[in-house]
């Protein structure tokens, strides 16, 4: 595929009518939801909740390009999410300004720990542009260093998964430390202003929702485009048979490092938008169990499908918030059983189920054996 073709597919990243319809439904949701809220049909609280879900969806998509399309199961995706969140959280902490208790411009936890002056690495975060830059750069650099090391020595499969889990575990322990200057186990909270606006205003909530929605749509569009390019083909080839890719003369290491960094940056952006909406970021967000949660979202939605991660993240989050209220004692059991069920009976997730139903209907109607051009891997390791 030539370069011009790649560019032209930027305008048309989707293959089938179903995919276009899905995308437009998603876009419609992002547009209609705020309008309904303006009309007073949806509470500001709901807008805030759904804004977080959209961030989760972006996070799930970032894992999907790694796991679903490249075959790299990263159990530490929560780390990049949290790093982005922490980077933006630093800016938000500094925007709180002078607090009534200690009468200093330092974040509360620093007053509490006896700091007299802002540590040097905090100073640039007064500048919102630097904060946004850090949201991209910090997860990107961490992913680059780790990815370059791991892929260079051809760590793959289960080993890669376990190493990413160890990485996020080590980072959690580090962030729990008070001396690490990131608030220890309390993390950052009590934010007041973002880009000069009061963070508790309804309009800010709405703006953050719209920003999350735009991020979701852009990432959705961008990743779909990437899949259509030659790059995306190599990516899937690596998933299906890495050795053949290497024998064909491609450096699979470079591809994998690039995808890993890209995925980390997307996760970091999602985290940065998540933190002002959640109002808190602490090391709990990067615990290994969070990383597994993301994997579950992707698996339930359907990995290696464009829409799967989005629907998986949102559905599981809805299920979680419903069952924690309805069955506070049993929700972990419900969630756990859902995973087991999905793995056993729906290996391709919700989207896979939908595809199967479609193929079944078509087979009954036309009688022809059309397996459909799905993107679902036959057997991914």
């Amino acid at each position, binding site marked *: 595929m030539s370069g011009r073709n790649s560019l032209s597919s930027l305008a048309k990243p989707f293959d089938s009518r179903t995919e276009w319809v899905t995308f437009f439904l998603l876009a419609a949701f992002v547009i209609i939801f705020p309008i309904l809220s303006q009309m007073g049909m949806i509470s500001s609280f709901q807008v805030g909740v759904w804004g977080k879900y959209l961030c989760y969806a972006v996070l799930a998509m970032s894992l999907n390009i790694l796991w679903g399309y490249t075959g790299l199961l990263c159990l530490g995706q929560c780390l990049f999410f949290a790093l982005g969140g922490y980077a933006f959280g630093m800016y938000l902490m500094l925007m709180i300004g002078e607090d009534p208790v200690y009468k200093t411009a330092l974040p509360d936890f620093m007053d509490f720990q006896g700091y007299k002056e802002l540590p040097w690495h905090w100073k640039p975060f007064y500048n919102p542009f630097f904060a946004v830059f850090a949201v991209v750069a910090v997860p990107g650099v961490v992913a680059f260093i780790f990815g370059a090391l791991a892929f260079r020595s051809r760590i793959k499969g289960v080993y890669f998964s376990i190493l990413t889990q*160890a990485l996020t*575990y*080590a980072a959690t322990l580090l962030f729990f430390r008070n001396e690490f200057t990131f608030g220890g186990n309390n993390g950052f909270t009590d934010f007041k202003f973002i880009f000069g606006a009061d963070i508790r205003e309804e309009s800010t909530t709405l703006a953050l929702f719209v920003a999350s929605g735009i991020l979701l749509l852009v990432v959705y569009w961008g990743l779909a485009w990437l899949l259509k390019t030659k790059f995306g083909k190599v990516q899937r080839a690596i998933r299906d048979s890495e050795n053949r890719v290497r024998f064909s003369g491609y450096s699979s290491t470079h591809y994998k490092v690039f995808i890993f960094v890209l995925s980390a940056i997307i996760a970091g952006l999602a985290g940065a938008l998540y933190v002002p909406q959640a109002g808190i970021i602490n090391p709990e967000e990067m615990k290994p169990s969070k990383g597994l949660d993301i994997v579950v979202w992707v698996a339930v939605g359907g990995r290696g499908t464009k829409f799967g991660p989005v629907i998986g993240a949102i559905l599981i989050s809805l299920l979680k918030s419903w069952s924690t209220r309805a069955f506070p004692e049993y929700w*972990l059991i419900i969630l*756990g059983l859902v995973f087991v069920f999905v793995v056993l009976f729906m290996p391709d997730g919700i989207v896979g189920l939908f595809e199967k139903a479609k193929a079944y209907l078509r087979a009954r109607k036309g009688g022809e054996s059309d397996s459909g051009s799905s993107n679902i891997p036959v057997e991914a390791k």
Partner: protein
Amino acid sequence: MDQRLSKLSTRALLIQVILSTGESQTAAIDVIRERGEPIISEVVEAWRIGRISTLGEGEEVQVLIQVSEGQYEDLLTGSALTPSGEPKINRATRSLRKVLKRIVDLLDLKSPDMSKRIAAAEKLGLSQNEEYLPELRELVPKQSDKKVKAAFQEAVWISELKNGRIDEKISAVTSLGEVKSYPARDFIEALLKESREAKVERLDELEAVAEIALKKIDDHQKLVEVASTLVRGLSTGSVLLLVSYGLAITFGQMGVINMAHGEFIAIGGYTTYVVQNFFVGVFGVESAGFGWYFIAALPAAFVVSALCGAILEKGLIQFLYKRPLESLLATWGVSMVLQQVFRLWFGAANVAVASPEWLSGSYELAGISLSYNRISLIVFALIVVLVTWLLLAKTNWGLHVRATMQNRQMSSCLGVPSSRVNMLTFAFGSGLAGLAGAFLSQIGNVGPSMGQTYIVDSFMVVVVGGVGNLLGAALSSMGIGMLDQGLQPVLGPVMGKITVLFGIILFLQFKPGGLFAARSRSLDD
């Protein structure tokens, strides 16, 4: 000494001290002096604060101890009683109190309990109080036990550092150097400083012996530190080995990424808890039978975990052998379910598992303290490695396991009942996790999330050792344990752990297959 008095019980003697005066009182005190019983200090203390009272007159008089408001005990029998009249408070004279205080101070020196005697000697020695030096000196030759005698001798020397003549000081310093007494170190230094300031005679000689003694003590101390780090490393390594050996089988041999491994550990811990409660119910806490509950808990923990493992294999994992990464997801779900089940069943808080008496306490070896449960942990880890090796290498079943793990289809074609072998292997691995849980209940907490504490560590151990290599897992757990304990004194516990984790990540960059990488000609292995 009065023969009649020495035959009386200590309680009766105390009554005589309280009631009589003059010579018969002094005689009774002299006898009490030689008895190291705790009742003496109790009574003396009660007497001091006015809790000793008398009831009745003449021959009928009773001596009472006030236990609390309105509650009395008969001093002679020790039994509780309600006084029939108004008890009269009895107080000791000032001079008598002084005499008694001294007896109480020296009480433990004569205690029949040897460890108490040692502790008392150490305490008096370190106090360097001149008053007790003659008493200590006098008692040294009377000690029959070697350890007790050494402790008394050491106490005398330390006391002499301050209170002795200069020749005594010099010989004390030399002797303390010989026995490498660490507690004496600061005192020797203080003595040296003081002597230099006071410019005492024979200063050169004192300086020379002190230097030698200090060096000896320091060298010994370094040795002790290294040795105890080694021991602690070994025991941390044994914990890692126990928690990861089951995983080395289910993950390393079978290729199942069992995220519920930690919960099998917890099952073992909870089984121990249940067995303990059963023993408490049947035998009672105080009985000798309760002490043996742990012996019963070990096989129980193995069997229960193994059963759960077998159920999990039959119900879930057997469908996922071709999809290892998905076994990760499914078992993660199982792990969440199990954690919540523990919470509902046993409560969200940690449950209390008591250590049996024979496992608590410690053994001192050349200054290194080895607690019994650490030692048994190391021994037990060795047994687990040995038994597993024997099972896999020497039995028919082991042969089947190894064949199935190498190639499921091929061994199945050759008549190995591979589905049963799979189930039994998984059950065995889970059972090992349960055993680990039983042991962890002795050194850590048993709670719903106890498994989560160990899961990342266990995977690390297996990956570093080389997946599929049991010996590698044993070595890597020992190595990681040593490294962890070696770094802890320098960096603190959490930073030490973080460093180890990053170290492992870096290590795998250079040896991606672990210590003992599986060799294969296949490209995708």
